[in-house]
């Protein structure tokens, strides 16, 4: 999922999205599936905005893999619905982890003593043994 911007000064969704993107995502997470027109109506009620701007933003979010588009019907009955790929909570947890890992990678040699270094090389056998050891310690 391609989030490139990250604003540490902002709170919540605005850390990952621009202001309009954040409003669109909030609406879609709230309703789970919406068309461009429906999103436009919801946002336009809060503050006037053009349909074109909403459409551009939603297509961009689809390109980034944050939204999924499904088209049903044919001809004049053709309707495109947009769904969130992840729930809001899943999205924030994953993006925060990605950003943090990026920071750790960036600061890597400087923050040498990060507590969780090289977790990808953890041996599954040792993980099982450690789990058993903790259970033993709990019983003592």
């Amino acid at each position, binding site marked *: 999922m391609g989030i490139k911007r990250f604003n540490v000064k902002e709170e919540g969704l605005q850390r990952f999205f621009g202001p309009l993107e954040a409003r669109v995502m909030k609406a879609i997470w709230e309703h789970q599936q919406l068309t461009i027109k429906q999103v436009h109506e919801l946002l336009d009620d809060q503050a006037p905005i053009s349909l074109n701007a909403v459409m551009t933003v939603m297509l961009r979010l689809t390109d980034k893999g944050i939204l999924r588009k499904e088209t049903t019907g044919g001809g004049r009955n053709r309707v495109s619905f947009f769904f969130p790929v992840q729930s809001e909570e899943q999205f924030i947890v994953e993006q925060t982890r990605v950003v943090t890992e990026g920071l750790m990678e960036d600061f890597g040699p400087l923050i040498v003593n990060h507590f969780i270094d*090289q977790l990808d090389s953890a041996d599954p056998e040792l993980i099982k043994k450690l789990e058993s050891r903790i259970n033993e310690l709990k019983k003592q």
Partner: protein
Amino acid sequence: MTMPPKLRWALGLNVGLVSWILVQMGVRVRHQLSELPEAAGEPGIWATLRSFFTQHPVMEQVYNVAILYCVVMVFVHLGTQGRQQVKLLRYLSLTRDERSSARWTERLDADGIPVIVIREQAFVAMACGFFKRRIVISTGALHRFSEEEVLAVLYHELYHCRAYHPLQTVVGTAISRGMAFIPLVRDLSRYYEIWMELLADRYAMKRLNSERPLATVLLALVQGYVKQPYQRELGSVSHFAETAVNYRMEQLIHRHTELNIQVTNRRNLLISSLGLLFMMVFLLGYCI
């Protein structure tokens, strides 16, 4: 924590090896400078570089390139670290939670080493700073673990801070990158880094008089990481890798058993011996 004898030997060998390589390089540069032709009207630095790379046989030029590579890599690495330090400090100042930081600093009581709590949902815990040392922990880590488990993490980081490990690693990494043509230097640095982690864990276990809190945190993090499908290819199997996390788990499982950590391998030993021999030939054949 006292260093095990093997680690003392490895550290002494690394310092000796690096010093010996630097002395040889210094002698080589001094020798070349003494041979520098008088270049009228040309700036000294250009005359030196031109002489280094044009007026010597190919093998000598290879040696000169190795020296230049070493100097450039060390400066590039230190420059990058300086830049990252600024970036890190800015990140810490933007995300710092003042009240929680003050509380944990008081709780840890670490002789002037502050605990900085950052507002971050993910697990972050680290020791940083070259001379002005700090322990950084995220609110995500504080919420996820009990007070005793958080203390285990903080004691681990405190050991790193007290022993100036961030500074040592920056210098060690710069040198081992610069001396990439002697892989033994890199292997010895890696060996030392693994021991840094093991000693930090031992310190945390000693302070809490139990390995359980630390083991619980490490297990939770390792399991949480392993479960993420995007971080591992489907069907991949990981075996024991010579990394700190595996030795740390081994130490927690068998607390009083001595660990057998591999320092280097035959290939790297052979390459390093050839590299040192190559340098010695120049030192004896040309400079003396």
